[in-house]
């Protein structure tokens, strides 16, 4: 059996900092939506969203403090999603 990871309790200060970061990034998303970046409109919005997701996963969902089994499980899930979406483009992009 794999070793049990120790419980990790985050301080209020750290949680508040993450929350503040998320609020700021939300503000940036709203702000950027008023600027016409042409082709980059969607990629920039997605990039900001990805950064926010990373913060939520690492701190609110404690991924930063987990062991290799949880990392591997998470990576498998994301890989599956990438395959499902990515392989659909073999059809949609070449019709």
């Amino acid at each position, binding site marked *: *059996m*794999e070793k*049990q990871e120790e419980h990790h309790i985050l301080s209020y200060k750290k949680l508040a900092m993450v929350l503040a970061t998320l609020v700021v990034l939300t503000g940036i998303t709203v702000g950027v939506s008023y600027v016409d970046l042409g082709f980059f409109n969607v990629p920039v919005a997605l990039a900001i969203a990805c950064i926010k997701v990373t913060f939520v996963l690492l701190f609110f969902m404690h991924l930063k403090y987990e062991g290799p*089994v949880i990392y591997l*499980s998470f990576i*498998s*899930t994301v890989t*599956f999603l990438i*395959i*499902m979406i990515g*392989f*659909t483009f*073999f*059809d*949609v*992009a*070449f*019709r």
Partner: protein
Amino acid sequence: MTETQSFYTISAPPGMHGIKAWLLTHDHKRLGLMYLAAVLFWFFVALFLGLMLRTELMSQGKTIMEPELYNSVFTLHGVIMVFLFVIPAIPAIFGNFLLPIQLGTDDVFFPRLNLFSWYLFMFGGLFALISLFWGEGFPDTGWTFYVPFSVEVDTNVGLTVTAAFILGMSSMLTGLNFVTTFHRKRHKDMGLMQIPLFTWSLYATAWVQILATPVISITFVLVILERFLSIGLFDPDKGGDPLLYQHLFWMYSHPAVYIMILPGMGVISEIIPVFSRKSIFGYKAIVWSSMGIAVAGSLVWAHHMYTSGMSDVSVFIFSLLTFLVAIPSAVKVFSWVATMYKGSIEMTPPLLLSLIFIYLFSVGGLTGLVLGAVGPDIHVHDTHFVVSHFHFVMFGGTGFAFFAALHFWWPKMFGIMYKFKYAYVGSILAGIGFLFHYVPMLILGMQGMPRRYYDYLPQYETGNFLAGIGAYIMCLGIVIMFVNLALSFRKRVVAPADPWGGTTLEWKVPSPPPVHNFIEDPILPDFPYDFSGITDSVTENTDERV
């Protein structure tokens, strides 16, 4: 072991009696048996419906039912068989019963969640039943619920896909429980390469259940939204795409084939070495092939869509990827055959059923390659060839593995033996009936007979008639098999803890096992398939006493 100490007489949680001890149980073994009762009920309903379909097709024109009823019956047969029998059969019954024991622990990681999964399964089945008698009756869409028909038709599609949605949740939660138990509750001294292959196959399956099932759940929600709100997701007039539905449906439903077959392969990997009295050939290769099938099986969904109008690039790539799945599947088949080579083989009903599995699954796999290649697939797409192919895999494969598992672990689950003679008769009739039933369908498909058609041209009558005869022989064999098992309760010939000479942990505990599985900390062998200490033959233990 006295009977008072078995899990039948001591409840978990303690202090409950009668029906309450079952309906509120946290015991994985009781839940396995509760799944067994429910799954067998659905199996026989769907088997009867299938037999009615083949009876209808035995002659041209109307034989026993009208076309509208025929459409509903083949849909009902498919939905029940797929969602209520083939997918849950081995993981929910034998997985629940055996996975914690094979891992050397007392229960699954989330026992209450396990009970909740069973209730979800029952509610899903109840919804399917209600949809039969509610509103416009059961859908006639086929189990695939393809749009635009499923969005436009008046029948009870909404309620039926809700049933499938609930059943999907049950499947996901079972998968989650197994993965967590595998990692977090395994015996502290059990390394990854000491885990029995049945448990490894359940682990690979559980990942597919967790990752793929949400896709079909979302898809079914979209169908319901389309029916009630006409959003236009699949409607080209509103900017939608009907092929999107097919992509989403097969993103789950092709991996679902591996949810069905992987646990069956795990069963065979347990049975073959026990009755060959020989260590399994290629243990690590089988472990990796299970994981390989889980991964590769998730990359090939669009091979169901070659004729649907998707791009040629996609057709080419998915055809190529499909051939990859054959490699890990073949690794397993060759390993089973190599295990038997120069083994000290003892024939028993579980072994006979396993051999039938290997033969039928091989035919199913090889006909799958015919369909994976684009050229022949376009010729036989949506014909009886396809029907025959997936029945060779799902029924010849998973179905016979289920029968084998039932005969293999019956003494462990109920603590009693059954008569070998009738088990052989039932198995042989089922196997021969299977071939008479499905080989004519392969030929009919090559001749061009479409699937799901109520009527056909005169040249297809002989093949359909022969297939109908085969269906009756097969069903007779299955009935004999189950009556024989049921009769074992009347004679109650007590089974020893290890009637077969097995080496995995479930054979080290009494039959039936005590409520917490192990009275003492189990002694783990370095390798789960070490038969060097097994000298008794099977017949000495069992056959003479039955």
